[in-house]
């Protein structure tokens, strides 16, 4: 499959780049677009609709593109990957989540995916502020099976926490999901999800919660506990909540991280990016300095040993990593780009979805979730 990529900061630049890259007769049928909410996405969608291209699009909290022409990490820009996938080996669906729970939305999307292909690989982006990523994953798995291959991320909005968007060539949704399904008999789709965050402090119990809203921790209002333990000011929330997620213990040594996406000051509740069940044992967590870069590099190298051939790399990297690592974030992205030396496109997310090698899919926060696509 042929892949061309570009980055830009304007809609005009987007059109120019597209026309320039197709001047040689290249006719892409799928475009991956990760864009800041600052750009007029309706124009981008209208343009791509005219071109007859299927669009797998998401708003971002910063986007990046590493290719032979350079390395771009931007905020307020747009990155695009143009592909000519084999007709009949892919399909794309946009699902509106209004009036449905995230689990129900997942079931609807999953049902569609397994109707398209008996054994699909799913790439998914979902609205970061309205969709409970964990429930979305569970809904898809409920119909498509625990072992479904799936990678993706929750859309961002440059840390404004106001509106997150996913879009296709047909329309944009602030409460929905876009799925790109690939036929696994045609494409190899593999990846990893790794965080590096570590647990801090004593175990605590979630004593009252509902879905992704936590009301009390150890019988104290969740917002008060969070503020007291981290000594943060009210105005620092929810931004700082992305960087200091709760670590939910699973069967030792497994755990998942759940970042705070929003707060309900009236109810003194914390709203997380995924489900935090009542009775869960949790701790606070933190990134241990820049060591997480070394952790990621190690995992990337292990993955390369497992799957060294790729046509395209897509990276869903948690916005918290960007906040925690600053300019050093480029080091871990660079590691992946250098290894495979293939175009790498991605964005900083409000949550990640992925399999770890052959393990079943899960919903994460704080991770570096890298997926490799290779036509067989």
């Amino acid at each position, binding site marked *: 499959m042929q892949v061309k990529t570009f980055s830009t900061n304007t809609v005009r630049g987007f059109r120019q780049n597209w026309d320039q890259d197709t001047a040689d007769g290249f006719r892409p049928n799928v475009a991956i677009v990760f864009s800041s909410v600052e750009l007029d996405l309706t124009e981008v969608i209208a343009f791509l609709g005219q071109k007859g291209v299927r669009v797998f699009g998401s708003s971002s909290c910063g986007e990046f593109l590493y290719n032979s022409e350079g390395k771009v990490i931007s905020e307020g820009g747009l990155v695009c990957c143009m592909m000519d996938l084999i007709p009949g080996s892919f399909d794309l669906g946009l699902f509106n989540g209004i009036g449905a729970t995230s689990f129900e939305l997942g079931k609807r999307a999953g049902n569609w995916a397994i109707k398209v292909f008996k054994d699909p690989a799913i790439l998914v982006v979902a609205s970061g502020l309205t969709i409970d990523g964990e429930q979305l994953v569970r809904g898809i798995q409920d119909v498509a099976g625990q072992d479904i291959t799936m990678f993706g991320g929750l859309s961002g909005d440059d840390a404004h926490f106001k509106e997150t968007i996913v879009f296709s060539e047909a329309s944009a949704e602030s409460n929905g999901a876009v799925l790109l399904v690939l036929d696994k008999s045609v494409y190899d789709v593999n990846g990893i999800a790794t965080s590096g965050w570590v647990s*801090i*402090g*004593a175990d605590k119990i979630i004593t009252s919660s509902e879905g992704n809203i936590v009301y009390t921790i150890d019988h104290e209002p969740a917002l008060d506990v969070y503020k*007291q*333990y*981290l*000594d*943060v000011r009210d105005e620092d929330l929810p931004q*700082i909540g992305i960087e*200091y997620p709760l670590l939910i213990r699973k069967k*030792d040594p497994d755990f998942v991280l759940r970042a705070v996406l929003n707060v309900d000051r009236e109810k003194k509740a914390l709203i997380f990016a995924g489900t935090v069940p009542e009775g869960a044992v949790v701790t*606070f967590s*933190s990134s241990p*300095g*820049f060591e997480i870069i070394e952790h990621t590099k190690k995992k990337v190298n292990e993955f390369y040993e497992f799957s060294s051939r790729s046509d395209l790399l897509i990276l869903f990297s948690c916005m918290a990593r960007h906040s*925690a690592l*600053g*300019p*050093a974030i480029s080091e871990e992205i660079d590691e992946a780009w250098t290894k495979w030396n293939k175009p790498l496109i991605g964005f900083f997310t409000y949550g990640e979805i992925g399999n770890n090698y052959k393990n079943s899919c899960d919903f994460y926060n704080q991770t570096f979730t890298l997926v490799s696509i290779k036509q067989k």
Partner: protein
Amino acid sequence: MPVIFQSLIDELQNIKSSEEFAGSRERIMEDLLRMKTEHEKLNFRYERLNKEKNILSSLLTRTSADLKKVSENLKIRAEELSAILATIPAYVFFKDRNLNYLLVNKGFAELVGIPAEQIKGRSVKDIFLNYNSSDYFVTEQRVIDSGTAMYNVEEEVEYNGRLRWVNTNLAPIRNAANEIIGLIGISWDITERKHFESDLMHSKELAEAGTMAKNEFIASISHEFRTPMNGIIGLAEILKNTVLDEAQDDLLKGIVSSAENLLALVNDLLDFSAIEAGKMELDFHPFMLDRVLEDVFQVLNLKAREKSLGFSVIINEDVPKHLFGDSQRLRQIILNLTNNAVKFTEQGEIEIHIRLLNQAMDRALLRFEVKDTGIGIPPEAMNLLFKVFSRIKQKQHYLISGTGLGLSICKKLTDLMGGDIGVESVYGKGSTFWFTLPFELSGPRLENPYKNQPAVEVNYSGKKALVAEDNLINQKIVSFQLRRMGFEVELTDNGQAALEKFASMDFDLVILDIQMPILDGYQVAKAIRQQEKGTSAHLPIIALTANAMKGDRELYLEAGMDGYVSKPFTSEMLQQAIEFANKAAARKITP
């Protein structure tokens, strides 16, 4: 960074002209950009660490407070646990994977008389002297290996010179990683309970022995009853064949009726003791249902007519005719219920009604009803009806004789045959006794051709019969009945004499009492068969016995006999037995 700085300084210091600077400009710019990037990273890191300083410091402070709280809670918990362990009324111990004691409670330490701290690290054999139960070790090891708890492990141990029984529950202990790191055991002293159980067991054995003795006694007494009963019935039969006036005939009927009632009682007792002893065995065979009912009708119709009662048998058309089951026991139940109906009815009628309840494949469930228009049963007595020896305490019922065993035998027989039994009654108007029984269906060809065939008058003139019987009255009865059939009879009163006669004369039939002095009936039959060996001869031999238990027939056949007749018997019964034995013997003769 310092290296880049120094090389940059050195390079700039060495530049002497603007041309030289222009030449190095690009490299110097590269170094400066690299320094800028590194500076930015360092700056970010510094700012972040600065920002994080407060957060991490707060987290650490809070965590430290949390840990202190947790530590205090743990201390409280430990004290609580220690108090529970000390006061729990049981012996509690924890062991490691090697089955050595880690911790024991106060009760345990007091039990073995060793301080708790000295028990730690020691095995059960170090604690309990003379301990040799390898089974217990296997049980504990199984708990460790399988990860499952074991309950009520009982063993006898010796401590302080005393033997005590303990009951122990064992459960594995797992760590946070779910690995088994040892086990916990909780024991109780059950010595008193064990002694109590032992006493109870002894009492039960005694009670069972008593019940067995009682049953054997009843069986034995019943057996002893049958011999004189044979005399009474037999002699009455002889008397019946003499010329009697009307009054004498009435007296004789009274004797026969009383003897029959007594015989029914003895039979009931025999059945009851057999059921109680679990020795009642059913004899399944193909039979025709209407034959069984004909039998019942013949037996009871006369009695019904004597009381001017109507008596009818209705078999619904869909009821299968050919069945497979114990026809004798079925007959016994119907006879018993119908006999009761006749007994307790003074006017009106008796009706036996048989319906098909269910038929599937080769099985049928039948319902038998015996309906009367008699005195009925008071409601308060309904529940007692099928219980042993229960008779209704009501004036009218006392006028009627009975043992109180009949219905309970019917109940036990229907239970044995997989059926149900019950009664519906309106006091003063009549009762309907019913029972249901499952049967397998059989084809007509499977029916035993020798069963239920009416005896026909036969003449055995010129035939010679040898009879060995030690009871003089019975000798008279048998010889009278045989002579009436035309036999010439040779009598002996013991087995030895019978064998001697057999050796010196030719006989056509041998009738042997089972219980005789010198040689019993079995021994004589075996000796005769031994002498016949190698010849084509097979003389018909009939056992004459007071034993009426099922299973006895097998013993007679095993001894080489061809048939048997139970005392007391009528001449018809004896004649049927002779015919049956003749046919059986004929089949065994080698041509």
